[in-house]
């Protein structure tokens, strides 16, 4: 499409909203991978699982956001259990855990994917709510309302998690556990229990993020593959474990993707996240706000 300033402004606004949505889907990974160093490649698959959970509750007339909140505790315990399993089988054994731990999460992602295909089929599914169809008029620009909702929830989610991690004892302990387990033990906290809680939070957030996903776009079971690129791009670009960095990095990705979408076409868009990811890994593996 030909270049014009109006289109560029529209792309940037759209990208800003999209970016906040990407922050919501990535923030769980930012905790699991960024703070805990767990190679959680199955994070995007869990996200899609969350979307399907919301879809399922939607069949009984539950609003997507309410469904996301209802599923959050379920996902918290799912995540805590998963971390326990990962700890007992890999972290405790140490050494060769690298290859096997990665393979474990990669295999898990495909198991979730196939189970979703078996349960729901390969067709796209979407959520229903009053605010999904309409759009917000802002002068000349029309902004889809579903993106505004995702934007708001994403901001609240990021702010809440940032506050939790820096204000509460458990939150601070989660931040500390990735840096120095021995010191944490001296402070009277059990590192494994702390990590279990952190992983539970990282997974619990996915229920709400999954609700955002199905509000923004219809989902299908293999969608997790493209979100591997988006979520890891955001977390790596942010710099491991930086919550506010996650928001900034997600907005950069959202704007970049939206500009490519507008001026080069949809067929190039999937490469943006992966290209950016590769570029960051090659030139600045520490990310923007790396520790």
């Amino acid at each position, binding site marked *: 499409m030909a270049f014009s300033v109006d289109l560029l402004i529209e792309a940037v606004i759209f990208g800003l909203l999209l970016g906040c949505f990407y922050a919501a889907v990535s923030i769980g990974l930012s905790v699991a991978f960024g703070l805990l160093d767990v190679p959680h*490649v199955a994070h995007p698959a869990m996200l899609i699982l969350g979307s399907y959970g919301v879809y399922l509750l939607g069949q009984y007339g539950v609003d997507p956001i309410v469904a996301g909140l209802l599923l959050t505790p379920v996902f918290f315990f799912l995540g805590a259990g998963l971390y326990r399993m990962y700890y007992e089988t890999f972290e405790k054994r140490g050494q060769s855990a690298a290859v096997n731990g990665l393979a*474990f999460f990669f295999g898990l992602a*495909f198991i979730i994917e196939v189970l979703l295909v078996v349960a729901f089929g390969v067709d796209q599914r979407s959520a229903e709510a009053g605010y999904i169809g309409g759009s917000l008029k802002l002068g000349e620009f029309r902004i889809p309302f579903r993106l505004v909702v995702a934007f708001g929830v994403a901001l609240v989610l990021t702010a809440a998690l940032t506050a939790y991690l820096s204000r509460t004892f458990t939150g601070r302990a989660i931040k500390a556990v990735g840096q120095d387990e021995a010191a944490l033990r001296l402070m009277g906290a059990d590192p494994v229990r702390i990590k279990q809680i952190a992983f539970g939070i990282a997974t619990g957030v996915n229920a709400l993020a999954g609700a955002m996903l199905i509000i923004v776009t219809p989902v299908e079971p293999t969608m997790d593959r493209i979100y591997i*690129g988006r979520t890891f791009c955001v977390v790596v670009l942010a710099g491991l474990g930086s919550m506010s960095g996650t928001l900034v990095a997600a907005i950069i990705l959202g704007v970049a993707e939206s500009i490519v979408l507008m001026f080069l076409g949809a067929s190039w868009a999937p490469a943006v996240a*992966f290209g950016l990811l590769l570029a960051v890994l090659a030139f600045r*593996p520490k990310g923007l706000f790396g520790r």
Partner: protein
Amino acid sequence: MRFWSICAGFIVLAFGLVQSPVNDYFFFAGFVILQAIVLATAWNILGGYAGYVNFGVPAFVGTGAYAALLVHLSISGPLIVQILFAALVSGALGFLVGLISVRLRGIFFSIATVALVFIMETLVINWRYLGGATGLQLTRPTEAWPFDGYVRMLFWVMVVMAVIALAIARYIQDSHFGRGLRALRDSEDAAECAGVPTLRLKLMACTVSGALLGAAGAPMPMYMSYIEPYSSFNLVYAVSALAMPIIGGMSHWIGPLVGAILLATIQQIVTVTISSELNVLVVGVLLVVFVIAAPDGIVGLYRKWKASSK
């Protein structure tokens, strides 16, 4: 010596088999299992020996397939030229991945290889000449002398490729090269300090592994007589190529062979009798069960059993 006679024996035996009046379906299914052997063996050179987990197998397989297609479309070159060109291009891609590994270890390396899959896929989708997003229908050449049909020839070519891949893996394992890779897998810094040329070894391992993966993908367009980007760059290749060596055992070249035969055969049976979705489930479940319960694979279980029965 014994290894080489067995190899030659297999190639001759396979040649006799393709001349026999066995049903074409046998070769169609056999091709998939042989391809799995090449993929698993090639993956293990980098993943098993050096400990660098490559999630980007589809990037190499797809690149190989499309490189072969390019040769077919532009100069209508014969299969052997297609395979060699595919190996060359994928080998170059492997070299690039090797350069990435200078700075990236562990999961960062793996995620970078996933990125490669989607970048190559996007390039192909936007390349009209190669069929773009919709793909291309191809007709197999009818002539395949001295073979009775093109699929039979592809089967035999895959047998040769599997033998070559296994011979390379076996050679690397017992050589200076393989010992260097194992050293850098256990501790890259220690290996570097001990004078192991880690960068050169990693570049070589990536190039060899990439070239073999690409060569295994090269016959795909002719085998399917159809090619399109989404199935060529499907991440299912990645999880299979990783599951087979882990299930078989990564420490010995025979592990990927055992894992590939076992898993690919189960997959073929499940695909035919139940559904193609469930065969991915089989791969995933077996992979997770093995990494938890038997991280050294079947080879490891066998060694344990032998040690305890002594």
